[in-house]
């Protein structure tokens, strides 16, 4: 706590803690040093409708829960979401940022790279280690592409802002909660690894992207 107060006094405005604790009171007209440098606008435009659409496609339309196809649909939609919705609501130093095309591409690579630590986390959380390793990697790829807009913003804000942590946490929580259905003995075809968790992280990401600006 003392550290945080000191930070405010010294006005080191890029600190994680200030963004987390004080951005709620922002008014976007005038930015002074007490205002957070980066925040999300509280608007419904950040709601990632496409995630729900993808889930609908995955559960109802796709053939036998095609997780791979879902991933290939997810990537372009996430890029579009970032350009047209997410980035437009990101306020950095009192202004909206223009889309940084090279960074978009770099972040795709970043997401793929992120899938490796994501996979380690998933295995630590109890995924099978030897069997189904490819499915686990697919799940990790989904998770890291769901985090794609947040990852882009991390890069875009020079790695200094802790605000984006919440998006990652939301995805993890979604995945964690969805595990509940795995032990049930209903013998449904959607209980196969990793389908419930894929659905879980999508819902987690949906909730995360929708409400993080408010908390």
């Amino acid at each position, binding site marked *: 706590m003392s*550290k945080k107060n000191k930070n405010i006094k010294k006005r080191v405005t890029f600190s994680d803690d200030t963004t987390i604790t004080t951005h709620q009171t922002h008014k976007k007209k005038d930015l002074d040093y007490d205002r957070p440098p980066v925040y999300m606008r509280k608007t419904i435009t950040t709601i990632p409708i496409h995630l729900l659409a993808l889930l609908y496609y995955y559960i109802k339309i796709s053939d036998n829960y095609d997780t791979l196809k879902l991933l290939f649909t997810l990537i372009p939609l996430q890029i579009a979401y970032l350009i047209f919705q997410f980035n437009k609501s990101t306020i950095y130093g009192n202004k909206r940022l223009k889309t940084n095309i090279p960074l978009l591409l770099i972040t795709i690579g970043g997401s793929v790279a992120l899938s490796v630590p994501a996979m380690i986390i998933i295995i*630590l959380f*109890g995924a099978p280690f030897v*069997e189904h390793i490819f499915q686990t990697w697919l799940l990790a790829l989904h998770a890291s592409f769901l985090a794609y807009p947040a990852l882009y913003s991390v890069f875009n804000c020079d790695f200094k802002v802790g605000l984006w942590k919440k998006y990652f946490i939301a995805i993890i929580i979604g995945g*964690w909660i969805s595990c*509940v259905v795995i*032990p*049930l*003995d*209903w013998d449904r075809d959607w209980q196969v690894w990793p389908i419930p968790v894929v659905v879980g992280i999508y819902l987690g990401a949906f909730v995360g992207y929708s409400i993080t600006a408010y908390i």
Partner: protein
Amino acid sequence: MLKSLVVPLLLQLVGVFVFLSGFFPQKNVLSGDAGFTIDASLQEKSKHAFNKLVFVVIDALRSDFLYSEENSGFTFVHSKINSGEAWGYTAYSNPPTVTLPRLKGITTGSTPNFLDAILNVAEDDSSSNIKEQDSWPNQFHKNGFKMRFFGDDTWLKLLPNEIFDEYEGTNSFFVSDFEQVDLNVTRHIPNQLSHANEWDVLILHYLGLDHIGHKGGASSTFMPAKHSEMDQVIENLYKNMKDDTLMIVMGDHGMNDVGNHGGSSASETSAGLVFLSKKLSKYQKPNAQNDVRVPMTLDDPSSFQYLTSIQQMDLVPTISSLFNVPVPKNSVGVLIPDFIQLLNNDKLANIKIMENYRQLLDVAKLEDLDNILNEFERSPKKLDQEYAISKMKDIQETLIRNATDYNYDNIFIGYCVLVVATLVAIICAIYVMHFSYPFIGTMSISILLGLSCFGSSFIEEEHQLWWWIITGSIALGYIHSAISGKTKFKLYFVLFVCLRLIRGWNNTGQQTAYSYVIANLLKSNPTILWALNIWAVFILCMRDFKGNPTSFISSFTLGMMVLTYKMNWSIINKEQVPEYLIEIVRKYCEIYTGTHDDQVFDDALIPMATLFFQSLSSICFIKLLAVVFRMQKTDTLLNDMSKYITLLLIFLSSSNNIPQFLIFEVLRFCIIKIVQEAGDSKVYIVSLISLCLQNFTFFQFGGTNSIATIDLANAYHGISENYNIYMVGWLMAMANFAPSIYWAIFPWTTIYKDTRNKKELFVKCKLPILLFNCIVGCCLFAACIALRYHLFIWSVFSPKLCYYAGWTVFMNVIVGCIVEGILLILV
């Protein structure tokens, strides 16, 4: 302060005991022996369908072992089934699918009492025998048949021995013995065959196949050889049999693919059953056998329903009728329709069916509402056999469903007492803990686990819930520490990796079995396994040894004894052990026994264990004396005791689980570092961590909420053949709860640093666990009451109830409160 713990604890105990006594009442059985009731003189005069019976029980003979294309090696049986000299069935064996209750079912024809499964463990318990109950061996004996028995000594415990002219029991002391245990049965056969005129009934019970299953699963590499060995036994017996001899080959239960049994899955309940006789070829074979050639492949092999499916109890009235003896009084079996044609004439057949029908009505305490009996008496010739059989099947179904009469008074009194205990516990907890985070945490875990009791699959897969809670709390803890600015990334990472390793150690739960679990990998890499085992013991002895040389020396000596004993045990059980270790152990054993033959390992085993127990108890005793007479500083006592107890736990664990203790030590180190700065709530957090890990590690050692996984192999360490049943009981409880005991004593060394307010700390540490037990108990009892007629009540909910009683009485009261309380008084 102490009152707020003791009052709810005692109330809870009373509630649990009263509830259990109401939920598992002793079953009412009809006493006395049955006699003929309908036209007794005619029945007594009529000829038997067969004159001799050869009854071969092959333990755990699953239906597919007899009939399946893929798994079966019984070529002789196949040829006889195809030629019509043998009739094959798949017999449904009622859960609990454990030998003792199944033998009760096979001999008396009654549905088993759930408690029998538990008493199967305490084999010496006299309340489980059926010497007072009517059974077909009893009826055969009464009607002058001369019987002989060779095989599993459970039969001899169940039945009065004087009904057998000649008998020899074998026991399943070493599960790893596949050969000798069966040779001990087979070696009697030549002699019996050459004196075939001296007996009428020959009963054989083979255990080897079950042992192979327990050791290596249903598709073990030893299986094919065992199948052909059994097949040859059958062939040998059959070839030397006369036409009027009936041979029955059956399994008492099946096994799941891992080789366990006890539960109610199709694999465990589908036992094979074959009737063989030359006479059978003269009659019309069962419909299911008409267009089929055995061995066969099923459309759905996981159903295990080969040929005709019947109830295993149906065997009892069938052989009673075939040999013309009264059907045992408590039997709920129905005469197998295929055999009606074997009864000399229609008149006798009708009488036998009616006899069976009347006996079923008696067991069910029903009136003859359909007037079948009356009509039969009016016109004995015009009996609609099919209709009567179908009516009997209906009665049988009701009887099986309502196998027990619950004692509702006790159930409700027990439940109310437990609810009161829970309310008192909640009030006390609020009074002591206030509405702090630990209180909320305890409540959420308890309610979550409580609600899960209503779902049978959550009970079967309870370990998943604990894993889920643990991963969630670690993530929460990490986020909390990150927000408060003290990132301990490395500690949390090591913690998480340790837990993940423990999770990957064994197969647990009742639904899936992975082949790549660490225990299996280590089994095939004995060098690594034993290196890890040695490290586990060594690291444990090294714990806090600074400035306390006596503790190090004593624990190190005990540790060496544990290691040599465990190695010797593995060698005897034919596990893979590195060569150089075998040589070391051989030297040690030779010094021990003074002999140099191959028997040296076996001879040294029990003395080694006895020496360990004696050393352990004397060292503990000396420590206690030293503390009582103030010769040693008191604060080291808890530390030393926890080390000695851990060594005892290692002693009682299987060798491939010992490395987990090494991980536990690392885990313990991390947790102590993490909770260091928790402040006032530290005691609660330690208590909650202890609770979660007790349950989690219990499952990851291979435990489940099913009777099938109770570990018996480790209950006999240091116990010779004429053993004391209470000793075995204690060892069994400790062996099965070994990892849980480790985590139950974990708070000893972490929270009692300040010995001035130890009473307060003790209460604070026990309250969350008590609260958890009360709430889960309330929910579980409610689930059992609500679902008392549910399909899974005997296979899922009742075992869970027994485990709950075990956790409450053994883990919380005895280990948690009594042992810890006594030690704290001494400190």
